[in-house]
């Protein structure tokens, strides 16, 4: 049993791409301006009606819709001393976490009526690069240049306890992301690998349960599909890879040994991106994959209808040239599944797009 893409599948995918390009249209709805300098990250509120953004100017801006236009409603300042690299809404939508190059992660809420920072997570030695809430909202993960991944437990009002410090990577950790329904964590690193972690129910110890090795350079970001059984990763090696989980009872004959499951790379999308791919977003409603690239372009991929689970094929459906005037740093699908896509860039802008098939 092989899980590599066969020559036939490659050829089919090539032929399809010859005739089926640009089947998805990405139309600009609004340019959101207000940040000074690089905008590193944007985050949709779980209800899809508030946007948080952050960047080089050390501020967090909260946007919501006034009529048809998104406008800045709140600016959070003084939370961080350096660049804010990532913002993340908790699943309940009441908390916002921000990760900064100043080595701290701040937790904001508006229990007092307006947004305030009521907890600061300290522990990383230097830049925190990413922060993510678990699906239950009970756990928080952070990672950074100190090569570590931290798992924090929400212990009570404004109380966060460190559950684990995971030192599985041997370089800078760029991104953390949780499985959509389980307490399984994935991290992407400058060491070219992705690692997965979970808590051992026997001794409550968090351990690395899988290492995903196939990229040739820094893995910048990663996104699970809606089942959590597949993962998409993007890299400085200019490729996107799709990984599939094979559990111990898999029918394909993939040897799992004494583990619960193994992850295999089942598809590599190469030849599309011309520079580093900085972010990837897999829409849990439509299945569309969007990528943010250092060539200033946003691309949309869709799994083909005759795709084989063990060697899936994805078609490039849209190449949005000039999506930004500089590197695109982040792409995020609206969680409502309404095909709205947010992007942000080194050019200081956030752009809202409407995707239509």
């Amino acid at each position, binding site marked *: 049993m092989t899980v590599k893409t066969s020559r036939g599948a490659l050829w089919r995918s090539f032929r399809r791409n010859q005739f089926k390009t640009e089947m998805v249209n990405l139309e600009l709805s609004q340019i959101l301006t207000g940040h000074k300098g690089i905008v590193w990250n944007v985050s949709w509120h779980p209800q899809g009606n508030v946007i948080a953004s952050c960047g080089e100017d050390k501020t967090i801006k909260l946007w919501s819709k006034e009529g048809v236009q998104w406008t800045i409603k709140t600016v959070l300042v003084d939370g961080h001393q*350096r660049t804010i690299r990532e913002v993340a809404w908790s699943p309940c939508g009441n908390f916002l976490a921000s990760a900064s*190059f100043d080595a701290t992660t701040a937790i904001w809420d508006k229990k007092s009526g307006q947004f305030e920072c009521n907890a600061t997570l300290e522990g990383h030695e*230097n830049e925190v690069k990413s922060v993510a809430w678990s699906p239950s909202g009970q756990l928080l993960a952070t990672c950074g*240049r100190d090569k570590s991944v931290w798992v924090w437990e929400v212990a009570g009002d404004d109380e966060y306890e460190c559950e684990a410090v995971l030192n599985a990577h041997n370089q800078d950790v760029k991104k953390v992301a949780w499985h959509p329904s389980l307490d399984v964590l994935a991290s992407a690193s*400058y060491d070219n690998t992705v690692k997965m972690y979970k808590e051992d129910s026997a001794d409550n110890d968090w351990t690395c349960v899988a290492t995903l090795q196939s990229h040739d350079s820094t893995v910048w970001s990663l996104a699970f599909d809606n089942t959590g059984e597949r993962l998409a990763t993007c890299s400085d090696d200019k490729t996107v890879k799709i990984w599939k989980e094979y559990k111990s009872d898999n029918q394909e004959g993939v040897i799992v040994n004494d583990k619960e499951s193994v992850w295999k790379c089942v598809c590599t999308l190469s030849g599309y991106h011309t520079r580093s791919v900085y972010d990837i977003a897999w829409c849990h409603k439509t299945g569309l994959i969007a990528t943010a690239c250092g060539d200033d372009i946003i691309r949309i991929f869709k799994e083909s209808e005759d795709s084989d689970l063990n060697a899936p094929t994805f078609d490039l459906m849209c190449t949005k040239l000039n999506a930004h*005037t500089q590197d695109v740093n982040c792409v995020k699908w609206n969680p409502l599944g309404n095909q709205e896509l947010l992007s942000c860039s080194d050019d200081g802008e956030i752009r809202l797009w409407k995707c239509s098939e």
Partner: protein
Amino acid sequence: MISFFSKLSLNKQNSPLEHAKPAYMDKSATLQELGYKDENDLKETIYDFLRTIRDPEKPSTLEDLKVIYEEGIFVNEPTADKVPVIRVEYNPTVPHCSLATLIGLCIRIKIQRSIHHPVKLDIYIKKGAHTTEDEINKQINDKERIAAAMENPNLRNLVENCIAEEE
């Protein structure tokens, strides 16, 4: 014929919200429209930005020390959006030079601050010129590491001193 089709496709682009941008931000601009005679002119412009960078340790410029040299600057194929892609190779004075990373950082920041239009930069140590070149190359082309380095007050001071223009 070709130009007719390219005009046609430009007109089809439908983005009413796009702000008017100064001409140099128009990414379909060719090198000529950006103000360069040709690729060589762009190369010379980049070299002019870099030649005056001072060595972090010695009282000389990178040009004097032959760390920077004109043949080390390449104008590569532009991106699909017509953004010029420039590769700069530099040659550290000794293969274990501890300041090679700092020099790479100075090269990037000096070009970014001096150039008046979007550009993509790839900065590399001349092949075989450093014992840990792969490691350094990866670091000086990682935009996140660069951004963080420039927020470190000590590193930033070092860079500013090296790239400051002589009075």
